[in-house]
Every structure is written in structure tokens, then in C-alpha cells.
């Protein structure tokens, strides 16, 4: 990569540059530099919007090890057989070719907030004027007794999209009629509040469609209530009668342990032996790079200024997406994309003096329950009382017509195409 120096932070004496500076805005003065860590819906949106809207006035580097991004959103539709893996995989090529984003295919290893620079695992140094930290989540591998990273091939989580998603589908396809599937649902806060329950719906759809209606899916949930609960329970009763059982903490009396070797799940209420599949979705926290940089609080996630998406701990830094504490917004791709646009506007203003406008935040999360039967939950949000607060919310209702549910699914399909074009197109 031309113009990029590779040296360790310790040995850095000479000048370091973020990336190729090809067209300084002012002769003798380099363009301001924005470094974005993480190329998910949060980071990739900021990178695209800053690069596109500054029309070359700002140098944007996107640090992301992968060449392609597999979306968690609609990975449940892949599991349900409605989408191919290719349809949920997106390249960063448009970002680099159309908008001049410099894709640094590395993992950020260290953020030096005093010196305003980032070191990657191959010791590339990237200096920044503004840094965006958008690493998404890390899984708490020690939050489920008996389960750890070494067991994710046996009891997959599929809560980060990629090979895990493919593994879960493969394992689901192998379940024999009559088999028991256990999902260990995560505690709050976690990415995609309705995600586990949409996943259960898609599992039930696949089992039913292949005649495996004697299978049972048991959800062991640490939460008393969950997103779109009435809608999912109504949907399971209507479409998958007798196949899905949700157990809250009062009933199961706590998850005691899992044993990946024997496929056993032990709760205070019952022991499930020889499970055909156990999907463990553990507790979550902000990605390591954000925690290591001291940006997280005791919750494991990163507090932000709700008007700007700046880190509450460092005004040169922005945190968007699942890694931040988004107040009343859920952790979703829609939210991450919405937060990213506010951050991009503020960054451009601070670096090039472009106009600012009041921040706007929105979210809608669609969930597919059965073919042509989708529901949604959403709202609009504004900075208030020191957080991003809900100004107006909505949720689908039970008893909606089949036609409305079908329209909602068509909207879901349109949204996916829209948001992935907005992020990667």
C-alpha cells in the first residue's frame, strides 16, 4: 500500500501517515484523516458517507480484516432456506472504487488515544484526526457454564455471521425427526433483540417443511420477557403447534450447565439429554478493541454523547453500532446505519466545516415467522435526558390480516436490499 509506513508504535520516531495522500485539499497540507475500525453496518456506513459527501476532501481508511462482509441480518432467512449464503455476502469493492475509501485489510490491535493513531496486527500505523470505533460485539465465552470458544463447533452460536451461520444450517439439516433442539437465549443487552426468536421460527419452518414435525425446540431464556413476545408466541401456536416451547427463568430455574460432549443441557427444572442440536447464544459485550482502549463502562459497552455519537470518554472518537450504548435504540443493523449517518455529519463538519443538522435516529426490525408472514417493531429516537430516547415506537399486532403480514415481509426484502446498497453499494 503506497504511502503507508509500517513500524511499531514503540519505534515510531519519524512521521507517520494514515494512507496514500494523493490530492491534498491545500498545497502543503495533507487532507484530514478519518480512520474507521470495523466494516459492519456501523463502520462501513460512516466510511462511505464521509468519503462520498466530502468528495475527496477527507482521507478515509477502513480497517477491516475481511474482504467481504456476511450480514447477520437475514442470516435467519438463510437458515430458513429463503436466501442463499451469497445473497447475504457483500464486498467492499464499491467503497474503495466509487468513493475512494482505503480498505486496510488488517485487524486494529491498539488505539493510542494520546498520539491519535491506530496500530494494526501487522504493525501498520494509521494516524487520525477523527477515529470511528465500530467493532460490533464480542461473545462472553465464559457466560454459559460448560461451554466455551472451544465448543462452538459442537454447539454453535451463529451470532457472528460466516462459517458459524453455515454450520448451524448444516446441523439443523441433520436433525432427525423427533430430535430435541435447545436454544440458550442471551441476557440483555445483546444484538438484535428479536433475533433468537426469529431464528427459532426459521428452525421450525425448516423442520415442518421437511416433515420433521415431531421435533421440539426448547428455548431456555434468562429473560422474563422478550421482543415481540406475543407475536412470536401467537405465530408458533398458529404455524408450529407443539413444536416450540419457551421457558422463562421462573420455570426453568436457571441454566446450570451444558455438556458439549454428550449434548446435554441441565436446568433447575429439567435435564435435556442427547440433544440433536444446541444453539448457545451467550452474553455479549463491545468488541475487544473498544474495551482495550478504555471506551467501555462496567456494562461492557461504550457510552456515547447522544447528540453526536462521540465517545463519552474521548471527543476525538466516535462509537457507532453494537459496541455503543444506544439508549432506547436496539442493537441492530438499522440502528448502526442510522447512528453512522449522524457521526458522519459531525465528522465532516469538524474537519471541513460542512453544515450540521439536528441528529435523527430511526429503527425498524422485521422478523419472519413463516413464509409470507412477517412482523415488525420500530421507532424514532432523539437525544434527550443524556441518552438516545424513544420519541415514538410501534409494533405489529396479533390478528393482522395475511395480506398485511405478506406486505410486511415484502417490505423486509426491500429494506435488506436498500440498507445493503446504502452501506456497501
Amino acid at each position: 500500500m503506497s504511502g503507508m509506513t509500517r513500524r511499531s508504535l514503540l519505534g515510531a520516531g519519524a512521521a507517520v501517515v494514515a494512507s496514500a495522500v494523493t490530492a491534498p485539499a491545500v498545497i502543503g497540507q495533507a487532507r484530514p484523516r478519518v480512520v474507521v475500525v470495523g466494516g459492519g453496518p456501523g463502520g462501513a456506513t460512516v466510511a462511505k458517507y464521509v468519503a462520498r459527501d466530502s468528495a475527496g476532501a477527507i482521507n478515509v481508511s477502513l480497517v477491516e480484516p475481511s474482504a467481504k462482509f456476511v450480514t447477520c441480518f437475514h442470516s435467519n432467512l438463510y437458515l430458513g432456506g429463503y436466501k442463499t449464503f451469497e445473497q447475504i455476502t457483500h464486498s467492499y469493492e464499491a467503497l474503495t472504487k466509487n468513493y475512494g475509501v482505503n480498505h486496510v485489510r488488517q485487524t486494529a490491535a491498539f488505539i493510542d488515544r494520546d498520539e491519535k493513531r491506530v496500530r494494526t496486527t501487522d504493525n501498520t500505523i494509521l494516524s487520525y484526526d477523527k477515529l470511528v470505533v465500530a467493532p460490533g460485539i464480542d461473545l462472553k465465552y465464559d457466560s454459559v457454564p460448560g461451554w466455551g470458544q472451544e465448543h462452538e463447533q459442537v454447539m454453535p452460536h451463529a451470532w457472528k455471521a460466516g462459517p458459524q451461520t453455515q454450520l448451524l444450517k448444516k446441523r439443523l439439516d441433520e436433525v432427525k425427526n423427533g430430535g430435541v433442539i435447545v436454544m440458550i437465549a442471551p441476557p440483555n443487552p445483546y444484538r438484535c433483540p428479536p433475533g433468537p426468536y426469529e431464528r427459532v421460527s426459521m428452525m421450525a419452518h425448516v423442520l415442518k417443511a421437511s416433515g420433521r414435525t415431531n421435533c421440539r425446540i426448547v428455548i431456555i431464556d434468562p429473560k422474563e420477557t422478550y421482543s415481540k413476545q406475543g407475536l412470536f408466541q401467537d405465530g408458533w401456536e398458529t404455524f408450529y403447534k407443539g413444536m416450540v416451547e419457551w421457558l422463562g427463568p421462573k420455570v426453568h430455574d436457571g441454566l446450570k450447565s451444558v455438556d458439549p460432549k454428550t449434548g446435554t443441557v441441565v436446568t433447575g427444572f429439567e435435564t435435556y439429554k442427547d440433544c440433536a442440536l444446541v444453539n448457545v447464544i451467550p452474553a455479549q459485550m463491545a468488541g475487544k478493541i473498544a474495551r482495550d482502549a478504555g471506551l467501555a463502562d462496567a456494562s461492557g459497552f461504550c457510552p456515547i454523547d447522544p447528540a453526536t455519537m462521540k465517545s463519552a470518554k474521548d471527543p476525538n472518537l466516535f462509537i457507532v453500532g453494537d459496541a455503543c450504548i444506544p439508549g432506547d435504540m436496539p442493537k441492530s443493523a438499522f440502528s448502526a446505519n442510522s447512528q453512522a449517518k449522524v457521526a458522519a455529519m459531525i465528522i465532516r463538519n469538524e474537519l471541513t466545516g460542512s453544515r450540521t443538522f439536528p441528529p435523527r435516529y430511526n429503527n425498524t426490525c422485521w422478523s419472519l415467522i413463516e413464509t409470507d408472514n412477517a412482523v415488525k417493531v420500530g421507532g424514532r429516537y432523539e437525544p434527550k435526558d443524556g441518552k438516545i430516547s424513544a420519541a415514538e415506537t410501534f409494533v405489529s399486532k396479533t390478528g393482522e390480516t395475511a395480506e398485511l403480514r405478506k406486505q410486511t415481509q415484502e417490505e423486509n426484502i426491500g429494506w435488506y436490499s436498500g440498507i445493503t446498497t446504502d452501506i456497501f453499494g
Partner: protein
Amino acid sequence: MLADGYRRLARAGSLAATLLTAPGFAQAAVSAEVKGDRELGEYLSAQCTTCHQISGRSIGGVPSIVAWPEDQFIAVITSYKEGQRDNETMRTISHSLSLEEIAALAAYFGSLKLTGQAQK
């Protein structure tokens, strides 16, 4: 000629009839004369482009909103804002928009060229 997305919307909810009788229509017609702030519209448009594609490509149940006549754009958003048309996502977003902002969005999207194809 109506843009493709507008035609879809008009079909879906017999929009013309709704608008003629709706209290918002008179207001919308007036606000069409407000000259939209395109730059504000461009900023606000980022809320729309999470679903509606800037190329005007329409996929699934999300119509194109590109290259509509400005007064029609204003009338449609106003019809969501005032409850003649109901879609929770659109209703919620329209509630956050002032008439000036709706005009700004109309000016921005109205100025874009339709380059994408409609797809089901």
C-alpha cells in the same frame, strides 16, 4: 408521468381520492410553493435511503421515491403524517418531519435521476 414508485403507492391506497378529501392536502399544496432547502433534504434523505434506494431501484415492498414531482412527494408524506395512509415505519418518520423538511426532501429526491430498475 408519475414515477414508478408513486404509481405503486397510488394504486395501493387509492391515494388520489384520499388526498383530495384529506385536510392535509390543502396544506400540502401550499407547502409545494415553499422552496425546499436541497442541502437539508440531502441530509434528511439519509433516513430514507436505509430502505429506499437512491438509484430509484425498487425491490420487494419498498417503492422508488426518486424523481417524483415535488408536490406529489409532499402530498404523499403529508398523508402519512396526518394518518390518511398507514404504514408504521412511514408514519413514525413522517411525524418527525416539519413541512419545511418535507419540502426539502421533495426538492432533493425530485432532483435525482431515476437510474435503477424496478425488481420484484
